[in-house]
């Protein structure tokens, strides 16, 4: 009994998750209730929220374990978020009030929007249309802009410095990120995330297809540029999420949290939540583009008309892939120290941009010589 009492919130959350999954599976044939479930419960708002909190916990726990610490409890992010909501919301004198009030909310909306493009259980996400990868890139650019405006609105020297650093970092990592996502898109012949994810030539599907006899051994040469682009995309995602080593805009010890320095209560809640959700969303997008998203090759299609087992298998595969990507990002921040903003610009423009260009170039060369079957 005391176990239940002590772990009431995790048990409640897991029970809610199971209940939602059961509801979803029970009503999947029903046209009337499915959209509601879709947008608000399962791949929609609630699921994204919980996944964001889960990956925050996972990130912190792994970080702590690799440092020989015990780390936070499973429920810790939920407590943190609830606490921030209950705290006093201070608007300091001298801030630019409209931006200061609105941008945290806008960041959450942007993060949710990106997360809606992530294919979770089917080959397509909640929103999917031709060219949605470009739209996602556009949303990610807006996130950088919102960070800059937020820092500017605080009117605090640390905030201003953080804002200018965030803008510089944005200019640096945006192009390598775009190029690294463009490579698989060129290979798949589509700018639609769902079509890229089912492509035979993504990083994970290529070896699987080779063993299944779908592609010949010579096509395995595509793995070289794909691995390069995958690495660049992880680095750029680390920079976008403002994690060590690419977090000069947020540097806790020198500019005291940068653009978040004046935020309290609800506003801090919103920015942190946006960051958590963005971590999940980015991991999901990278998983879809490089690792085939929820499916492995056309496994899901073969299993039959999306029955229960198919859904569960694809959700599981999606979770494993995103967890691996989040773990890679955590590993980055465990193994490195923060670099300066000038070094960040240097690394991205001098090394990662040419590397990603070479990756895309190699893909184009191989497509010209070997071709896509």
């Amino acid at each position, binding site marked *: 009994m005391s176990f239940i009492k002590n772990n009431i919130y995790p048990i409640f959350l897991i029970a809610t998750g199971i209940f939602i999954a059961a509801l979803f599976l029970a009503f999947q044939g029903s046209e009337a209730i499915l959209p509601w479930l879709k947008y608000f419960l399962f791949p929609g708002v609630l699921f994204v929220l919980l996944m964001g909190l889960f990956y925050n916990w996972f990130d912190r726990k792994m*970080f702590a374990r*690799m*440092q*020989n*610490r015990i780390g936070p409890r499973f429920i810790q992010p939920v407590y943190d978020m609830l606490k921030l909501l209950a705290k006093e919301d201070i608007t300091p004198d001298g801030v630019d009030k409209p931006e200061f009030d609105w941008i945290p909310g806008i960041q959450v909306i942007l993060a949710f929007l990106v997360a809606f493009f992530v294919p979770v259980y089917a080959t397509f996400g909640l929103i999917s249309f031709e060219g949605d990868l470009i739209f996602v890139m556009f949303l990610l650019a807006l996130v950088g802009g919102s960070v800059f405006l937020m820092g500017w609105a605080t009117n605090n*020297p*640390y905030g*201003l*410095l953080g804002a200018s650093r965030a803008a510089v970092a944005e200019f640096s990592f945006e192009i390598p990120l775009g190029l690294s996502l463009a490579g698989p898109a060129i290979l798949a012949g589509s700018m639609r995330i769902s079509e890229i994810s089912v492509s035979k030539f993504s990083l994970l599907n290529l070896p699987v297809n080779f063993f299944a006899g779908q592609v010949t051994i010579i096509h395995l040469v595509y793995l070289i540029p794909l691995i390069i682009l995958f690495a660049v995309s992880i680095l750029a995602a680390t920079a976008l999420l403002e994690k*060590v*080593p690419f*977090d*000069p805009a947020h*540097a*806790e*010890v*020198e*500019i*005291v949290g940068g653009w978040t320095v004046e935020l309290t209560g609800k506003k801090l809640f919103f920015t942190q939540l946006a960051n958590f959700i963005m971590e999940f969303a980015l991991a999901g997008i990278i998983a879809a583009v490089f690792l085939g998203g929820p499916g492995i090759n056309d496994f899901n299609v073969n299993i039959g008309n999306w029955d229960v087992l198919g859904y569960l298998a694809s959700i599981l595969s999606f979770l494993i892939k995103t967890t691996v990507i989040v773990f890679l990002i955590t590993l980055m921040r*465990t*193994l*490195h*120290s*923060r*670099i*300066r*903003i*000038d*070094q960040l610009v240097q690394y991205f423009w001098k090394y990662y941009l040419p590397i990603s260009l070479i990756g895309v170039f190699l893909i184009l060369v191989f497509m010209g010589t070997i071709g896509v079957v």
Partner: protein
Amino acid sequence: MTEYAPPIPETPEGDYSISIGPQHPTHKEPIRFIFQVKGETIEHVDLRIGFNHRGIEKAFEQRTWNQNLYLAARLCGICSAAHQFAYAQAAERCAKIYDEIPERAQYIRVIIQELERIQSHMLWYGVLAHDTGFDTMFHLTWRDREIVNDILEIISGNRVNYAMWTIGGVRRDISRDQITNIIPKLKDLRKKCDYHRDVMMSERSFIARQENVAILSTEDAKRFCAVGPTARASNVNCDVRKIDPYCAYNKIDFDVPLWDQGDIFGGLSLRLDETLISIDMAIQALENLPGNPGDIKIRVPRKIDPNEGIQRVEAPRGEDIHFVRSNGSEKPDRHKIRAPTFANLPSLVHRLKGCQVADIPPVIRVIDPCIGCCERTTFVDIKTGKSIDLSGEHLISRTNRAHRLGTRVLEF
């Protein structure tokens, strides 16, 4: 609300100014740097100290010689043994019993000071790693630092303020059991410090933040009178343990590492080397502990005849000087402290110019500032720039009045 300090001059040099301190995550201690910044480059540095002034030198005059031992330990929590030791030695010189200290006590003094140097240096490079965002290394070094704290706890009974010294010797002996217990721990620690050295000297992103940042040339180190590891990283051999040996340092075999780069990386490499050497020295002293158990102190009279005593000590941060004057009573007439951080601050201000904002935490860290030790005070007339001499009673009445009236700036 303002503070008891002259107003910040309006310098047209930078675009805007950043104030770091008195409360800032980089440097937990209250000190204030005002940076005039252009873009990301620092154009001008202004320094405000005095937030940590606790009137400790005045408090020395109000307590007896033996009570002052425990006050001296509270000058600084990290190098408490060095300060307490310097005070005890100065008092011994003052009482003319310096040559009569038992040899066993002198060896124990070396052991405690070297153990303190190990924990201080490990603390330093752990916090440096934290300042550059390398949290993993910070946690690993602090995990291993607990070993030194355990050893100190075995010997003295406390983790931080050891209170091992007394005027005329040491307060606690180290038994044979303790030695057999401690030496394997120190050897284990040496392996771990070797590992820290390997990691810190090979991690690229960590080194990239430090190489060729805030270089202090040998000439500048001499010109700004830098002391301790700060100066040794700039190839100035100024180790008091070697050039002016005290207690048993002339009987122990050790090297003084020097580094000629003078940047942050030089300071890091030097301290990593010194940690290893200090571990060896502690093992050496423990193995060769002379004398009979229990023969650790001599009796000292409560009152000390009028005399003066001065002692230089190599604290973990550099040369620490204590001066005492007795007047025949139970209490010292005057006690003066010159802490190593105070000597290193001018070179710090020189080094910060031209750095980037992101370099501020490691550059402040490189002199290993300990504001707790260094807060002495001088009254300066803002208008003429001359210092003013105030007697102790005058000072107390003035601060009381200023506090009562609520005026923040003292008018002269």
